[in-house]
Structure formats: C-alpha cells, structure tokens
C-alpha cells in the first residue's frame, strides 16, 4: 500500500513494527489529504487533519486540527502508537481524465449535467 502512490491509503490501519516505522506512517499521514485518527500510546484517539510534522527537532511532533476544526493540537512522536487513515481521501477520484471523459460524454449527448465539477 505504501509503494503504490497511485492508490489511496483511505481505510488503512497500519501496524507499526519492524517493517514499518512510526516515522514512515507519520510521513504518509502528513501527505494524506483527508482526516486521520491518531492512536496514542495511552489508548486515546484524536481524529482530524494532520497538517504538520517536524522530525528535525529535539522532540519531534505532529500538529492536527480535529474533526470540528479546533486546534491546532500538538502531539509528540513519543506519544503516538499509530495513525489510521479513517477519513475520505479528498485527492482521490478527482482525476482530470475522468472529468474529460465526462465532458466528452456530455458533448456527445451523455447524461452528465452541464458545469459539473470533478467529483
């Protein structure tokens, strides 16, 4: 799943271990354009949009706006067990090719309504 950059990570619930480091999961979550759920080492969870991470400081951290938009909440890497990709991937399915296909269908009498935006 990690290597397939074309595929969405939506729904993925990675287990951090010898094959997959926490830093890798955080980088993927940082790059993910949807909400994620941070599972903390104490078992609590926080869902929202992970918009920042900084591994280059003495105490690496992530920052997140929760699902209501409140925040930002800062969480040290040391308090994170894993991150689940629970929200819809807003970058997925927005293909330019799909829009062009719909546009062509519209021109040739397909059913797509005029002015429709990419899904």
């Amino acid at each position, binding site marked *: 799943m990690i290597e397939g950059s074309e595929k969405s990570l939506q729904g993925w619930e990675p287990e951090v271990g010898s094959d997959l480091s926490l830093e890798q999961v955080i980088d993927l979550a*940082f*790059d993910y*354009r*949807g*909400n994620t759920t941070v599972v903390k080492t104490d078992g609590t969870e926080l869902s*929202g*949009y992970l*918009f*920042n*991470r*900084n591994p*280059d400081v003495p105490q690496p951290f992530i*920052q997140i*706006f*929760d*699902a*209501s*938009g409140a925040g*930002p909440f800062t969480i040290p890497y040391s308090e994170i067990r894993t991150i689940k990709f629970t*929200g*819809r991937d*807003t*970058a997925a399915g*927005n*293909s*330019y090719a799909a*829009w062009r296909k719909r546009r062509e269908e519209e021109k040739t009498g397909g059913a797509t309504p*005029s*002015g429709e*935006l*990419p899904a």
Partner: protein
Amino acid sequence: MSVPVSQMWAVASYVVKQRLGGRRRYPLVLMLEPLFRCNLACAGCGKIQYPAQILRKHLTVEACLRAVEECGAPIVSIPGGEPLMYPDIGRLVEELTARKKYVYLCTNAILLREKLEAGVFKPSKYLTFSVHMDGLREEHDESVCREGVYDEAAEGIQEALRRGFRVTTNTTLFEGASPLRMREFFDAMMDLGVEGMTLSPGYSYSKAPDQDHFLPTRKTQELFSRMLANPKRRWKFNQSPLFLQFLMGKRDYECTPWGNPTFNMFGWQRPCYLLQEGYAESFQDLIENTRWERYGKKSGNPKCRDCMVHCGFEATAVHETFTSWKGFRDTVVATVTGKP
C-alpha cells in the same frame, strides 16, 4: 513591462535596502492565503483538496496583518482558495493598502462583478486584481473544468476597469499549450484593456489531479521561446523581463524559495509556495530553520528539477535587476524594446 513607476521604485528601494543591510535571504512577495475554499476545482490545482473542516476555516484579518508585518515584503499576493469568498476581504485589502503594501488579489473573477457592485473595494494604486486566465475561452474553460468561466472573468475584468481599478491577468501554462493560440490570447487580453499579463509554467503538485500535463524544463523553454518570439509592442507583461528570458532559456537561474514566502492557517509553509514539507510558527523560524540547501536545482531534489515557476525564480530575476549593473541594463533594454 507594465509595472507602474511608483511600484518599481518601492521594490527597487526595498531590494537595495535589504542588500545594504547585508540581508542574505529576504522576501519580495508574501503569498497570503486567508482560506482554501474555492468556487472552482481546477485540474492543475492541489490547493483545495482538504477535509470539510479545513475548507470551512479561514484566517482572521488580524492574523493576516500580523503575518504581513512579520514578513515585511513590499508586495502581498492574496491567492487561496478564492479570496473573493473570504468574508473579510474588503477590510483586509483596505488595511493592507493603508499600509502601502502593493496587493495582488488573485481571483478567478466569478464573484468580481458582484463584489464591485456591492462597493467592497475602492480603486487604489496599491490594489490590483490579478485575474486567472489560462488562455482563450476554450483553453481557459478546460483548465478550470467549467464552461462559461472565461466569459464571466472577462465581464469582471471589464467592470473593474470601468470602475478605475488596476487589473492584470495571471496565466499558468501546461503541456499542450499552443504558442499561436497564446499569442491570440495576449491580443485578446490587451483588447480587454488589462494593465499587464503574468505568465508561469505550472508546477506538478503531487496532489494535483492532472499529473500528465505539466511542463518539463526543455518544453517550457521551447514553448515560451515560440510564444514570445517577435512580441507585439502592445503586449504588456506585469513581471520581470529577466524572468521571461529565463523561461525562454536565455538565462539560467537558481531558485529563491524564500522570495515568495507563504502564510496560511497552518503557519509559514516550508520551503515554498509549492512544496508543503511542514510549517514554521514564525517567519523568523521559516528563514532561520528551513534547510534551504535541500531545495533548488543544485540540491538535486527531484521535486525541484523541472520547476521554473514564478514564485521561485521571479525573485531571483528581480534581485539581479536591482543588484547588478548588467541585470539593470538588460531589464532596461528589454523594457524599452519590448523584447524579452
């Protein structure tokens, strides 16, 4: 070149002051993104793909002004998202122009007529509407993935000009752009009466839906060389002629990523307007703690390899203009002859 003398003077004196002050990295244009919401979903744009709670949020005017003061750049560009959807856009612009910042409000112009009729803005030499126009009707509507937008934008431009506002256009070019059609587009924009045009190749956002149509360096140079060969005297460009020469392959520049720093609800974006590799809490933190050596062509970073976008290289061109006699001379010659 169509930049007014007062604006050129403000930029020139600012650049010289930075140099005299020994400042190695200084900002030229602040990219201020008060929101990510937009009323379009363009294929080349990766800026609007966020969850709903992020798209609903926006910066306060006060947060915007703090960022402007902190940064100190003489020019503030307001992209987004669509800035005309920002509820406090009138007050923000008023506050910025009162501070004598040259504001470029980058809009798709769908709401421009409505906002002008509502009296949201007052004409000022400090305010320019930079209207997104990616080509003639067919090309632009395709680029923004909605038909009819070109005509709406053209109407907005005409209304703004009629009311005495400064209006320019901003055009992003992708693979497949026709030099001949673009030359017709330049004529069309001059016929509309805009003050000047800005051009840039697109950048391949990793999140942009259309990944197949971004231009690699060689194709960019070929396109711009053909498009700008024997330019008509009436074409006015609201950007550095040296930057246009760079796009044509006549100059080789290194990126100045700190030249156009970006501030939005997440903070100060590292390292530049296009790459999102994290956020700094303050402008000082951005300048001092970003590992700049990781970016630009010399770094070998593959994300920077084919980038020739204005936000990285126009600041380099402006720097050359105002800090070297050769750069100044070449700029003057290009401006006088009208030939980039």
